[in-house]
């Protein structure tokens, strides 16, 4: 019996599964390092987060009689990313609630994979920040284990009590800024030797993961470069004008700029499909982030900057349509 179907008769090997599970793999270096840095509690919190995300998706699809799409791995990504954006000191239920919210309210109610407007992990984080601000913004730990960058714990004692960004927001004194701008601090930020969310510490390891995705074309480097680049340039301008006491390098290495710019802004579902749209998306997101950091009420602007840009995706796609061949 011959099979008949319309052309094309071959397809590339890349499927939604391939893409999603590759993102999970790309997050592993930073995850492993977070366990090493903050202890096994990180493992527990992340597992709870992933379990909650996957279970929420499974139950929602079951109850609403939709096709089970758990295996594509997208809920696992949401679980990991949400865990990455909470403090390693969080109570166990925090990631469970956050992931359930992200999957059910932000993703599934909008139609499930491909249909959500907001990045589920980011919106979940925003939900947690609004609901339990104390747990989300003032609950930091000093890294307990050794270091990647070879710094001694004493050298950084003064500044690792809180995250560098919170410190900056609470006390933007000259001396603080000076220590934040020191090469010691920047090195600590780059390799990940500061207090912060589970997945936001090591810019280096996040970059390695992202590089893998860029090479496989599962994330668009243009969004990341646009986002991180514009944080750098815009914060540089403000530094020059004396509006922010810290140098641009500190801005891109601290907080969630790397995690957000490399892994959240590049979420395919919630970013534009056109090249021009992606550049605008990234660059505008970076500017909003710096705005919030410098003038806003929160120490960190990454989540809201990307969420705001998520809203503009349909518009960006529309205004950046390519000229049709021969038209």
């Amino acid at each position, binding site marked *: 019996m011959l*099979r008949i179907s319309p052309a094309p008769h071959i397809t590339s090997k890349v499927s939604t599964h391939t893409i999603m599970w590759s993102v999970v793999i790309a997050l592993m270096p930073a995850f492993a390092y977070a366990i090493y840095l903050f202890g096994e509690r990180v493992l527990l919190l992340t597992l709870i987060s992933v379990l909650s995300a996957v279970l929420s998706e499974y139950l929602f699809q079951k109850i609403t009689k939709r096709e089970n799409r758990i295996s594509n791995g997208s809920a696992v990504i949401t679980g990991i990313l949400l865990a990455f954006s909470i403090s390693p000191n969080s109570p166990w239920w925090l990631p469970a609630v956050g992931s359930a919210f992200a999957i059910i309210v932000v993703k599934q109610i909008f139609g499930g994979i491909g249909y959500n407007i907001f990045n589920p992990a980011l919106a979940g984080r925003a939900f947690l920040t609004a609901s339990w601000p104390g747990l989300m913004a003032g609950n930091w730990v000093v890294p307990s284990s050794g270091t990647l960058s070879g710094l001694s714990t004493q050298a950084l004692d003064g500044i690792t009590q809180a995250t560098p960004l919170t410190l900056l927001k609470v006390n933007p004194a000259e001396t603080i800024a000076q220590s934040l701008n020191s090469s010691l601090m920047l090195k600590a930020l780059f390799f990940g030797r500061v207090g912060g969310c589970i997945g936001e510490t090591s810019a280096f390891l996040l970059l390695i993961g992202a590089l893998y995705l860029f090479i496989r074309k599962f994330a668009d480097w243009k969004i990341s470069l646009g986002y991180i680049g514009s944080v750098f340039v815009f914060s540089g301008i403000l530094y020059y004008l004396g509006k922010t006491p810290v140098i641009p390098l500190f801005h891109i290495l601290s907080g969630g700029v790397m995690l957000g710019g490399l892994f959240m802004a590049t979420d395919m*579902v919630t970013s534009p499909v056109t090249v021009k749209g992606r550049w605008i998306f990234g660059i505008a997101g970076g500017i909003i982030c710096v705005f919030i950091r410098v003038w806003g009420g929160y120490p960190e602007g990454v989540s809201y900057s990307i969420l705001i840009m998520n809203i503009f995706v349909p518009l960006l796609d529309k205004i950046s349509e390519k000229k049709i061949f021969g038209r």
Partner: protein
Amino acid sequence: MNLLTFKGGIHPPDYKYLSKDSKIKRIEPPDFVYLYLSQHTGVPSKPIIERKDEVEIGQKIAEASGKLSVPLHSPVNGTYMGTVMHLHPLGGRKEAIKIKVNKEKNDPFKAKARQDISDISTQKLISIIKESGIVGMGGAAFPTYFKLQVPPNKKIKDVIINGIECEPYLTSDYRLMMEKPEEIMKGVDIIRKIIKPENVWIAIESNKLDALKNMKSTSSLFPWANFVVLKTKYPQGSEKQLIDAITGREVPEGGLPFDAGAYVQNVGTALAIYEAVYFEKPLFERVVTVTGNVRHQSNFLTPIGTPFKHLIELTEGPIGEISKIINGGPLMGIAQADIESCVIKGTSGIVLQNQKEILKRESSPCIRCGACVDCCPMRLLPTELYKYIEINNLEKAKELGVMSCMECGSCSYVCPANIPLTQQFKIAKSKINRKSK
């Protein structure tokens, strides 16, 4: 080296290594051949013989009827059995001339060689090409005589000879360039005489540099020819993309190549023109690559009208069970309902797929990865188009340029969610066409 190319496209594995070294081999004709009256773009041909007539190889058996039509010639010596409805490789059953092959009488075609063609007028050349039944042999099967009659208000600056063969698996054009470079170039010279362009480009992809070298070896005889290497990418051989890559000019939406001052013809067609003009040999046979899941990868010089079954038997059959037989390449070719379908003038190859290779498309929601947007050679937004076609908003689909879709299959190929994009665009296009009639 900075190779010429267009924006977008895909890089599927090309599988040309399977059949590229199989030299062109003339085959023994089958017991019966079936010549469809419709095997070119345009009005079907009209039979001019009577049942039980004896026909000779190369004899005209059907004439052109109407504007875009060409005659048909018998590819064998045999007996005309009347017309029958026969399975057509492009779908459905179509009327075909059935000829029983006379196995006793295997005289070859009696060529009438011409030494000098310089005194033949342009008009005469075009009429020889028409009478020889020549159509574009790259797949579209557009009557060549018609294409050569460029409207007087259009000036052709560039003639491009298409030796790209970008569909995976197919090697029939490659073999021609390896085995008949001078003959092809003489055919190109005839096109050049008719069109009188400023430039003649011989375009070959970077994965066939040996073919390029071979073609270039004739350049002392044809000093006017420019040989260009294009980046190996699908669909580099598409007319519009090729013109864009070489001349930088875009064929306007809904327009034809001459609107961009260009004329594109496939190498196989150039060879057919050469044979028609120098030997009065009409188009009744062509090279067909038979490849994929077969024991002997082959390039057969095949009488038009040969059933696929015969060709598959000549390769000593498939390995294991065949699951799909494709007329043409795997990206734009058409899956066959049965092995009774026969070779037409546009059949450049037959690809057999086994159970493991066939696609079982199970689509999932679009994750907006943008791969289709990046690869569309016509710069359409397949992901947007699909959304509107799904809700049957054809007006909007038209506005977004669905009519420019050439169904190259790139978007469906790259889609990680396995959404049948090309397939849906094809349906939408025919719906829009039906509506406007």
